[in-house]
């Protein structure tokens, strides 16, 4: 135990000397979080100009409807801008607005006469997702417009039921994903920080010659990196609390547990790479970029449970995807995840397997060097 304490204290002293790398799990995810906050934290609607030439009153009703109908984001689908026709065309052509609706002079007259009224929808369609949104948003607008002007009742009414009373928005979903990324990078970067100086000063050779079990070397590194990963994640939870007002509350211990299990997987992976003298940095860069890739494709940007059949095979190879939705349950809704047992079992298996492989592989490598 004394040996362990000495090694742990030595590692801790080395760790303190490289603050930027120690913050490696914090700096990139913070930048990514801020970037996503700016991207998705604002008003998510289409900027639209409405050119109303209608001689009657329905054109104005339609314009009002456009500005009123709200999406599940809690804002209107369209942010209607007050622009003259000339300004509208100019801004549309320069792509500073998303679209223009032009209501013709005879719109009301045709509507009243049942003579197939039409409107023109100019829209930016540089990608099929935005084009699709323009088409299906317009359906929402017309539906409410019909109701507003007292069209005959629809053939089929619409109703909705939700599993919860509140809606969760895109940015909080991503923010939890970034938090788990921070845990991952926090663990991985700190292993690299703890092995880097040893690589540069060839201390790994001394490890290899040690008469004692090399677990005495690997265990303190693993524990310190694990703590660093969990601390990074907890710091992110603090940011989430201040920014979004969410906190796991009584489930904090379970959040820490999942953080730790996911971090251990990457720590073991990083240990294998970090203790190899050749291609050390290439391995470090590859592992960290790999963790970022996992974040982007394995549920970091979306809830995946409802869409499990569309998750690609690559994502199932890493523990991230199994932990991220249960974490969202606890952090965003203070709710116990329905799949807690499976999440815990799978992430534990990943962590145990990775540690067993990582430690034995790292030990063999060190011995070979010795």
């Amino acid at each position, binding site marked *: 135990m004394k040996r362990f304490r000495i090694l742990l204290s030595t590692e801790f002293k080395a760790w303190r000397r490289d603050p930027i790398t120690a913050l490696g799990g914090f700096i990139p995810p913070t930048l990514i979080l801020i970037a996503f906050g700016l*991207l998705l934290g604002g008003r998510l609607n289409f900027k639209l100009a409405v050119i109303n030439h209608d001689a009657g009153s329905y054109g104005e009703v339609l314009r009002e409807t456009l500005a009123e109908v709200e999406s599940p*984001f809690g804002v209107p689908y369209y942010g209607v801008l007050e622009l003259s026709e000339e300004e509208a065309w100019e801004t549309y052509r320069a*792509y500073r607005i998303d679209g223009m609706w032009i209501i013709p002079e005879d719109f009301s007259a045709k509507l009243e006469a049942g003579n197939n*009224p*039409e409107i023109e929808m100019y829209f930016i369609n*540089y990608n099929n997702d935005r084009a699709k949104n323009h088409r299906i948003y317009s359906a929402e607008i017309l*539906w409410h417009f019909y109701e507003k002007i007292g069209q005959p009742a629809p053939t089929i009414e619409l109703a909705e039921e939700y599993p919860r009373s509140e809606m969760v928005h895109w940015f909080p979903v991503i923010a939890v994903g970034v938090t788990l990324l921070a845990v991952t990078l926090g663990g991985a970067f700190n292993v690299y920080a703890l092995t880097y100086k040893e690589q540069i000063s060839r201390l790994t050779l001394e490890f290899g010659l040690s008469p004692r079990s090399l677990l005495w070397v690997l265990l303190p590194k693993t524990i310190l990196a694990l703590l660093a990963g969990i601390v990074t994640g907890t710091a992110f939870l603090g940011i989430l609390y201040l920014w979004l007002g969410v906190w796991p509350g009584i489930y904090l211990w379970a959040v820490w547990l999942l953080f730790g299990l996911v971090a251990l997987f990457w720590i073991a992976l990083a240990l294998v790479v970090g203790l190899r003298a050749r291609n050390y940095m290439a391995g470090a860069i590859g592992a960290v970029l790999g963790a970022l890739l996992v974040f982007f494709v394995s549920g970091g940007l979306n809830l995946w449970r409802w869409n499990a059949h569309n998750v690609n095979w690559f994502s199932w190879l890493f523990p991230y995807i199994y932990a991220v939705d249960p974490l969202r349950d606890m952090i965003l809704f203070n709710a116990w995840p329905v799949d807690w047992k499976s999440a815990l079992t799978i992430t534990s298996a990943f962590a145990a397997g990775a540690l067993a492989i990582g430690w034995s592989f790292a030990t063999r490598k060190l011995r070979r060097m010795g």
Partner: protein
Amino acid sequence: MRRLLLLILNELKMVRTALPIHLIAVFQPALMYLIMASVLVHPTFEVNITEPTDDAGKRLLEAMYDVGSPDGVPYINPVFLDDNDPIGAGIVTVEEIGDQPTAIYRYGLIDSNIVKNLRNRLTAAALRVWDDSLDGRAVTIIERPWLPHDPTYNLYFGMAMLPMTTFLAASLIGGFLTAQEFEFDTILEYRLSPVSPAVVLTARLVRLVLISWLSAGILLTVIGLLNDVWPASILAVTLILIPIALVGGGIGISAGLLLRSSLPAFVIGLGSAFACWILGAAFGLPAGFSGAYEFVSRFVPNSYAVELLFPLYYDTTIGDSIRPILALTIFSAVALGLAALAYRRRVLTCQE
């Protein structure tokens, strides 16, 4: 000039000393694009529905198949579920409520983005049924899209990754190589060298630009093969990416010089590359997002590069090209100035 050429040659030879890192920087973005392209948004959503038995439900189902783009891409793929099947994102059932047929969407989640997508699709289908009953009183929307066809989201996403790829390769390799000069004490050679710092930095930057081009070229090929869309001019793409490579290289070299350690330099290169990517029109043109995002994106070089790349991929312009060219020139000058200052501080005056 001869010294510069020799230094460039030497820089290129040095690729062999860090081949795995170069391979990662060159191939990783293309791999990332390939994997991300498989999970990016697609207009067709599966909509779970209980197989309708009444007339109204059957008409709704028919309308669901009709909702889509004029290009023929359906927006709804109805999936029939039985009572005992898990509902996933939700399920639509058509029921009689007070003699009125009602399509009830029972959602299995509360993710606003998914709910929005599912709700809009159901409304679009139900509106078609309503329109059919209105005869001449139904309002027709005449579509006037900006482009004749809807390009896939994958195309835009890939195009916006080109500057990120360039930035990442230049900043990673620039930071790593420069920091290693301190770690292996080879920086002494630069300190003793009579060659002008401008020549040394130029040689390194030429190397970084070439490697960045290679990385972007591989991604460009993958985008082309995946989407069957190629830029109007490869030469123009390479020219647009030069300032991005200079910015990435300038930041990487500065980080390497100031931090003198590979790992922290990597952290800075990685963080700046990904932040500039997300803030620099990664997921859509900045005008389509919030005012704050649009404002911040003006301070990110990637936004201007995307603005210049856009006409090459979409055969249409989004404003004049003078402003982005000017902005990229300024960004490059600032990054190079920063690298020159850092070089002066750490190499020429040996300040610790």
